[in-house]
């Protein structure tokens, strides 16, 4: 099989070939590493590449599968992880100069699960320092470039993971999200990104951005691949105080393209500032859902106009608490923008933080009432396509300073409230850049969100589009 065929395979098909022994894990890993070496000078998506360890583990996987000890759909599959997750014996930086040489002795919970499932970690991806940002330009290791246009950002903070999947460097990557760090880069990079309900995936052994908003999430080219990557890593973990007791994960077996009767809500007041091409793609996507049997309804939750500022105040205060010691000892070693953000967080008083939590509670109650009437809230994931690198952190166009109907409220409320959310491609604009929409479900309605996303991907082919860089 020619190498390019392997890279174009989704996780589902790659897995089938490996278990059938029509393709070896060794060959799959070797091909992914070759693609990484070919493209990463342009993308800067990786901080660490496991050039020796990954092929050795792939060889071991081939031997196990050959003996009939097949562990499941991730066995022998090359995957990547954001450099937020601790990996025993492997550099773990958080994108920071502060930990530029740190090698942990233990694995994070995510890595434990991936190793148990037989996945082969081929690299650790670039990010905004400790997850503090929405562009992946705030890394000690330099900015991540978008595979669709190298002058554009990949989005952040999990931009390296999104860029890797979009570029075909492994079919699956794991990231984290505190504000929008899975859904935004997924949208900008034209792939599928999913963050489950708060507490579904353990965060043990990953750096904290803001403990009450941090989630682990996934990137893949389709929602079917997302569920294959979700099942092995979901589950209760007493080492994470936010972890929830839950049934044995079975998102893949319960995945079905049936949304008949589902109520999909649109909060139109928040869409006024959305770019016209993005809006048109979203409106077309709504028609697809209507055609599949959904009822599209208008919804008004004015409390959400306070979501972005509440989320930002909360995460600023929490990240200042987390970074307090390092900030005092070596604040000059942070990326300047991140250092300034921590400084601002350091000045937030306890009573101000509690005010934000009261606001958060009020927003949560309004959203809870909304989900008694509807099943899913849908919106464009971002108000615009990936901005230029030269626009810097302002390029995202977020407004976290005022109560408003800015679309950034819709981007930030799912992480602040712990709701499951999926971003999936729904168009390409006139500049050949991908457009994403997000589907947000009620707490623990993860399967509903995934099924709706599958329905859309069954009826459309936006998720199969690839950047010119890859096709070349």
């Amino acid at each position, binding site marked *: 099989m020619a190498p390019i065929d392997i890279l174009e395979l989704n996780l589902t098909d790659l897995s089938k070939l490996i278990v059938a022994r029509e393709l070896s894990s060794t060959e799959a890993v070797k091909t992914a590493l070759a693609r990484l070496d070919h493209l990463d000078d342009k993308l800067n998506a990786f901080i660490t590449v496991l050039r020796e360890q990954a092929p050795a583990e792939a060889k071991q996987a081939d031997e196990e599968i050959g003996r009939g000890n097949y562990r499941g759909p991730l066995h022998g599959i090359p995957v990547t992880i954001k450099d937020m997750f601790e990996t025993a014996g492997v550099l773990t930086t958080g994108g920071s100069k502060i930990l530029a040489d740190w090698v942990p002795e233990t694995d994070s919970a995510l890595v434990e699960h991936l190793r148990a499932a037989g996945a082969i970690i081929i690299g650790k991806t670039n990010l905004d320092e400790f997850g503090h940002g929405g562009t992946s330009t705030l890394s000690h290791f330099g900015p991540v470039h978008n595979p669709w246009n190298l002058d554009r950002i990949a989005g952040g903070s999990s931009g390296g993971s999104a860029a890797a999947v979009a570029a075909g460097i492994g079919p699956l990557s794991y990231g984290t999200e505190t504000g929008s760090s899975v859904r935004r880069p997924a949208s900008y990079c034209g792939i599928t990104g999913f963050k489950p309900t708060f507490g579904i995936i353990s965060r043990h052994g990953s750096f904290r951005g803001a403990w009450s908003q941090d989630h682990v999430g996934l990137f893949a080219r389709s929602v079917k691949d997302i569920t294959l990557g979700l099942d092995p890593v979901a589950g209760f973990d007493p080492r994470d105080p936010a972890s929830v*007791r839950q049934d044995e994960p079975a998102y893949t077996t319960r995945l079905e393209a049936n949304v008949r009767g589902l109520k999909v809500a649109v909060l139109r007041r928040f869409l006024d500032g959305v770019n016209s091409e993005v809006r048109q793609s979203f409106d077309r996507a709504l028609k697809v859902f209507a055609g599949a049997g959904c009822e599209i309804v208008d919804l008004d939750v004015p*409390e959400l106009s*306070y979501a972005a*500022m*509440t989320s*930002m*105040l909360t995460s600023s205060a929490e990240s200042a608490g987390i970074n307090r010691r390092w*900030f*005092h000892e070596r*604040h000059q070693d942070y990326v*300047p923008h991140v*250092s*300034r*953000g921590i*400084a*601002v967080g*350091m*000045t*937030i008083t306890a009573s*101000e933080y*509690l*005010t*934000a*939590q*009261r*606001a958060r*509670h*009020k927003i949560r109650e309004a959203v809870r009432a909304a989900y008694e009437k509807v099943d899913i809230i849908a919106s464009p994931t971002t108000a615009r396509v990936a901005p230029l690198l030269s626009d810097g952190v302002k390029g995202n166009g977020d407004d*976290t*300073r*005022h*109560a408003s109907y800015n679309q950034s409220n819709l981007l930030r409320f799912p992480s602040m409230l712990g709701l499951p959310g999926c971003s999936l491609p729904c168009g390409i604009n006139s500049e050949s850049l991908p457009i994403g929409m997000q589907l947000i479900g009620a707490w623990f309605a993860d399967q509903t969100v995934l099924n709706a996303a599958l329905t859309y991907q069954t009826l459309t082919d936006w998720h199969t589009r690839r950047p010119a860089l890859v096709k070349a």
Partner: protein
Amino acid sequence: MTDKVARRLALLEGAEFSPADLEAIVTELEDLEHVVAELEEFAQDTPWISLQVQPAGEKV
């Protein structure tokens, strides 16, 4: 710079920044004052949050 912003800067406990960084921080602190004021008004009729720390679902 307002007194409120000056009081916030004092909480940084001597961390030194370049003039440009300091100017950016002051701007963000002025924004923060607006954010806090808006949130206080928005949240004033909301009950205080009660969070306990017992293991969930267990009788202690």
